[in-house]
């Protein structure tokens, strides 16, 4: 039955190459923890993606309650945390997931670095990976403000001041992020929300697609 369905679609869309890329390829021994336990270091990339998926899903559920304005932002988070069923778990997943994704990504970066996997022909994929790293840090920075509690406000204040101290473009970055030359308030919150929920995730998905397509093209780097 499934085979027939597959054939029906394949006849029209020629999906076999796509299917091969997603699922029907071989996993070499040197990256398979079933053969060498130390190969678990090759799992960090996949775990980073797994936690990223958790972040996207839990984030989608958070926006069902979150209100990005200075009057209601904190109240909506407080309500979600204390009144909504499983709200504490959804917010907890997003909160702890944010730290976890950074830890996993860091370990993944170190694995690629110390196995020398960024060398020819994989230079471009390394660059895309470092850009993903930057985007994830940006997501962490913008997401930290959104609960609009004390630590969020003052950490963001410091962060924006550091950005503003960069010569020439500093002031422009500050206005872009904060929405004002002096005030850190309603504008800042909506801008951080937009950056956190639309701009950076869009960039992230594009970069991840490039990352994965290049992995499939080039295969995993060989054994040392």
């Amino acid at each position, binding site marked *: 039955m499934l085979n027939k369905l597959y054939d029906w679609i394949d006849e029209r869309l020629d999906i076999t190459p796509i299917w091969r890329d997603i*699922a029907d390829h071989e996993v070499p021994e040197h990256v398979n923890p079933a053969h060498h336990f130390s190969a678990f270091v090759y799992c960090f990339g996949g775990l980073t993606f797994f936690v990223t998926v958790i972040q996207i899903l839990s984030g989608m559920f958070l926006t069902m309650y979150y209100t990005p304005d200075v009057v209601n932002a904190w109240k909506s988070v407080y309500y979600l945390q204390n009144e909504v069923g499983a709200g504490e778990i959804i917010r907890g997943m997003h909160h702890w997931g944010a730290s976890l994704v950074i830890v996993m990504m860091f370990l993944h*970066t170190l694995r690629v670095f110390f196995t020398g996997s*960024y060398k020819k022909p994989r230079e471009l994929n390394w660059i895309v990976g470092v850009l993903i790293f930057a985007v994830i840090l940006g997501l962490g920075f913008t997401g930290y403000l959104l*609960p609009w509690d004390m*630590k969020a406000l003052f*950490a963001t204040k410091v962060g924006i001041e550091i950005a503003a101290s960069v010569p020439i473009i500093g002031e422009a970055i500050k206005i872009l992020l904060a929405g004002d030359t002096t005030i850190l308030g309603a504008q800042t919150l909506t801008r951080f929300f937009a950056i956190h929920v639309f701009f950076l995730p869009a960039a992230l998905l594009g970069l991840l697609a490039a990352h994965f397509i290049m992995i499939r093209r080039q295969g995993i780097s060989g*054994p040392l």
Partner: protein
Amino acid sequence: MHKGKGMKFVGDSRVQDKKGQKVYPPDYSAYPGKNEPFWPDFLLREWMVGAVFLIGFLVLTVAHPSPLEGQADPTNTGYIPLPDWYFLFLYQLLKYEFASGPYNIIGAMVVPGIAFGALLLAPFLDRGPERRAYKRPLPVLFMLLALSAMVYLTWESVANHDWAAAERQGKITSDTAFDKSDPGYEVYAKQSCIGCHGDQLQGGAGVAFDGLKLTPEQVAKVAKEGYKTMQPGAFKGSDEELKKLANFIAEYSNK
């Protein structure tokens, strides 16, 4: 052109297998050892590991609810700020003399810029064919130096932060503001209530009313007859005043 099932590819690439043509990258079968198909064996194992990971993760979220401090108050000038933990090393760097004040540009731009630039361009800085770490000592040394600097700076930042003060300053304080011009508050201040229950209704020798969810009748009764350590006859005003007081306190305690 041949399409669909039965199509031959080179290695796991999307390059079609045309005999005699040299292709890149090499087929995994050229590597020594036991290859395993991703689908379904390897995926099943990955799935199980993922499930265990997810359970551990959910246990963490339940055991440690994510923190939420009091609502942001831009007028608070005494708050000691702290970024999230993964930015602590950058934050700590800016506290050193050589990277702050007139040299702020070093801490805010030069050092992070060089570090990030070097990471981004690593494949072009480390161009040799060797992949083993011990065969390329310089890149590995620089990475280890950067890592130890990050660990040290994070450690310093954590050790120098007053965590007890941070917990105090972030506490969610009651947002149940009340109107001091309320006639009930006038009675409250005029009678002896304010001495024990505080001018902000915050409590003291007497209880704080915040969240007690009292009815006006309960308040009136306690005001006249006392409760536990509160002596009877604390209230000495008229019935009219008692009613105002009771309504005011009851409304506040239900906010």
